[in-house]
């Protein structure tokens, strides 16, 4: 039962580092803030907040968690067991996605109530978080410090944030090729219905980008962590 155990312990470690407590407060803040926003802007603010915080939180927190394990030399100890890199990546991504889905759900139902579109909304948050967390892990293994990670991650993530410009009215057909477009569509389904084709397009887009991010993160992990260790550089 290697993967379930690793996954549950990842959640436990995040809990002990206070991530859950912090996000309960952050959620409370968003709930209060959204209630203060005039009703006609509340929906667009809800989409923007759900995407940019709970949806993408894993992207930033994965950096802290991986760098912590790297700096405390925990990785040495993990990888002299049968634990596989693929399991490590999935466990980290899935555990942070639990927090994403949970906080998105709490914020949404507290501000907008329960709607029957919620499943697609949560699928959107789930796929968005999985993609961004795995992508963030690929960035994190290239860094040695948290500052370095935040610098590099803002560069790496810039292109994926471009579809957010739609909110200001700017649009471009190339945004369709980015996972963020699909993420925003699925998250918006929590507020108004989207077409079946839009739903299929969004899920396929996020899954495809998720697979690309996974292949890239796994390759990065091998190159930056495992291969360096096997060449004699410290992890």
């Amino acid at each position: 039962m290697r993967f379930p155990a690793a996954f549950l312990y990842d959640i436990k470690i995040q809990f002990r580092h206070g991530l859950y407590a912090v996000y309960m407060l952050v959620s409370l803040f968003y709930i209060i803030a959204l209630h203060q926003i005039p009703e006609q802007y509340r929906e667009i603010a809800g989409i923007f907040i759900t995407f940019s915080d709970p949806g993408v939180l894993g992207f930033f927190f994965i950096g802290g968690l991986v760098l912590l394990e790297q700096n405390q030399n925990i990785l040495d100890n993990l990888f002299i067991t049968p634990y596989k890199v693929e399991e490590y990546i999935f466990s980290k991504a899935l555990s942070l996605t639990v927090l994403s889905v949970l906080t998105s759900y709490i914020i949404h139902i507290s501000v907008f109530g329960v709607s029957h579109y919620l499943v697609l909304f949560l699928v959107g948050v789930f796929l968005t978080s999985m993609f961004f967390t795995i992508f963030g892990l690929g960035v994190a293994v290239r860094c040695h410090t948290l500052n370095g990670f935040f610098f590099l991650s803002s560069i790496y993530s810039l292109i994926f944030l471009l579809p957010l410009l739609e909110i200001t009215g700017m649009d471009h057909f190339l945004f369709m090729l980015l996972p963020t477009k699909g993420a925003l569509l699925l998250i918006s389904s929590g507020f108004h219905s989207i077409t079946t084709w839009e739903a299929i397009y969004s899920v396929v887009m996020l899954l495809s980008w998720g697979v690309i991010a996974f292949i890239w993160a796994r390759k990065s992990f091998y190159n930056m962590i495992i291969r360096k260790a096997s060449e004699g550089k410290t992890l």
Partner: protein
Amino acid sequence: MIKVEKLFFTYPGRKEPTLKGMDFTIKKGEIFGFLGPSGAGKSTAQKILIGMLKNYQGGVHIFDQEVSQVRRSYYERIGVAFEFPNFYQRLTAIENLSLFRNLYAGDTAVPAQLLTEMGLMESAHMKVAAYSKGMKMRLNLCRALLNNPDILFLDEPTSGLDPLNAKKVKDKIISLKEEGKTILITTHNMSTADEICDRVAFIVDGKIELINSPRNLRVLHNKRKVRLEYRRKDHQLVTSEFDLQGIGTNHDFLGILQTHNVETIHTQEATLEDIFINVTGRGLK
């Protein structure tokens, strides 16, 4: 169990190899010690044996397979305790062990039992961040034993331990040997090696200078002298040395025994540290 032939290793970016042609074998059920000063290549050799460093030259056969080719299932059969005991600081000792235990597919030891054996059961629910270095070292050994490994690699296992806990660790290592485990210890602590190792290898500058049992080494390098300390009639302390050869008929020696108050009497056996310095011309620190 472990067979190493003509092992060379050069770290990337360095011209000089760190390991320069090591040859040794370790039998099943043996406690084998790598002894040498810091930077001699002990830890590098250990990292190769545990499959962390793969781009070596030469042969390293463990469980009849080349270590550079092993799959992750190899880690089901070995246990490793690195010199620096690193754990998840925010988890308790028992949580750390449970986490690592679940990473193995095979039969595993019960963490509470290991903690009891190492005298840590009372602190089992304490976060590792609050552990002392000595406690972490013992916890490190517990973690290495979780998967009931056939081969155990221990780097400086008694470092930072008080004599009582060092004895606890040494006793555990000896009992593991009695269970048929093969144990490789990397250390610069000569007295630990002397007490528990069946054979030791002296490593200096990436080469093995000598392999033998601590007892054989002591006999071979014995000065064959007896040293006495005794009080003269005026109460002054006097030290005298005599050859062991013909000691039973040495009149001076026998005279002292009969007429003086002898306080100490010892054969002048070389310590492992003396032998290391004699053989390698180097100290251990």
